[in-house]
């Protein structure tokens, strides 16, 4: 993701959205970049019938939350001022606090809170439309390349 002082926040979010849309799986899940900062990212996606993991409750599968968290954490690493050329997940742990409600949008916010020359440490949280009550939390380590 290119960065520079001549880019406004809106430009940067638009570029990030193009970046996300170039990822087939992120596009398939309908992910949208809501905000991007220095080592932080907010990405959301809509609920959909085909993503349901438990037909009795209509709750989306945990794997969907994993994909959103992983993408959001990766975007936070890429938006870090150190400017890594690319990144890959080393490990990611997700705690599922409660089920995301049927029909509601899920929003993940990630923060790359520490970066060395080789490793980025990230934490993230996922919310649905009841934003006082987190759906899931994640912590991960990512590679720093280039």
């Amino acid at each position, binding site marked *: 993701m290119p960065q520079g002082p001549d880019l406004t926040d809106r430009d940067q979010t638009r570029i990030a959205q193009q970046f996300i849309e*170039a990822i087939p*799986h992120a596009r398939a899940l309908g992910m949208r970049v809501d905000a991007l900062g220095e080592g932080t990212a907010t990405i959301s996606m809509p609920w959909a019938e085909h993503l349901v993991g438990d037909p009795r409750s209509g709750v989306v599968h945990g*794997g969907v939350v994993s994909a959103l968290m992983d*993408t959001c954490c990766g975007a936070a690493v890429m938006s870090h001022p150190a400017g890594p050329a690319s990144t890959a997940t080393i490990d990611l742990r997700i705690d599922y606090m409660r089920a995301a409600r049927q029909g509601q949008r899920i929003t993940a916010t990630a923060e790359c809170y520490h970066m060395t020359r080789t490793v980025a440490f990230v934490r993230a949280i996922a919310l649905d439309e009841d934003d006082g009550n987190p759906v899931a939390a994640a912590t991960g380590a990512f590679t720093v390349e280039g």
Partner: protein
Amino acid sequence: MADRREPLHLIKSRRDSALATLVSGVPYLAWLGIRFDRRGDELTAILPYDEKLIGNPLLPAIHGGVTAAFLEVTAIIELAWAGLWEEMESGRIVPDAAVDSAMPRLPKTIDFTVDYLRSGLPRDAYARARIVRSGRRYASVQVEAWQDNRARLLAQATGHFLMPQG
């Protein structure tokens, strides 16, 4: 005890239809294209390659979230299947998608940790789960995924699950 003289085709069709019912009940599995291969009670999950699974179009590589989802799906189906197997083989239940109460309730994920060992190639992936401990309330499951070589793991994961009650 199982009936030793029960015709083989009946045994196979009972087990295969129980598995098919379990798997077909989850829309997300169908969307990802995940299937299960059965040898006795042992399951192998299969994730056929598809363009929509790609996370890095330049390499190309499968999305890390897809790998995590595939491992989590494998762990959940393994846990539900292990419970279903006991009930089915003892003749206590006949799984039927049309009858809600005849389908096992799925365990809920408490936490799930994925170790990414190799970049996912644009080809089919396989996974097997091992139930490390399954109590009345909680279960711990370990899962491994690979692509071309069983010994060269794509990823491994450990997860804790809340077992369905009642």
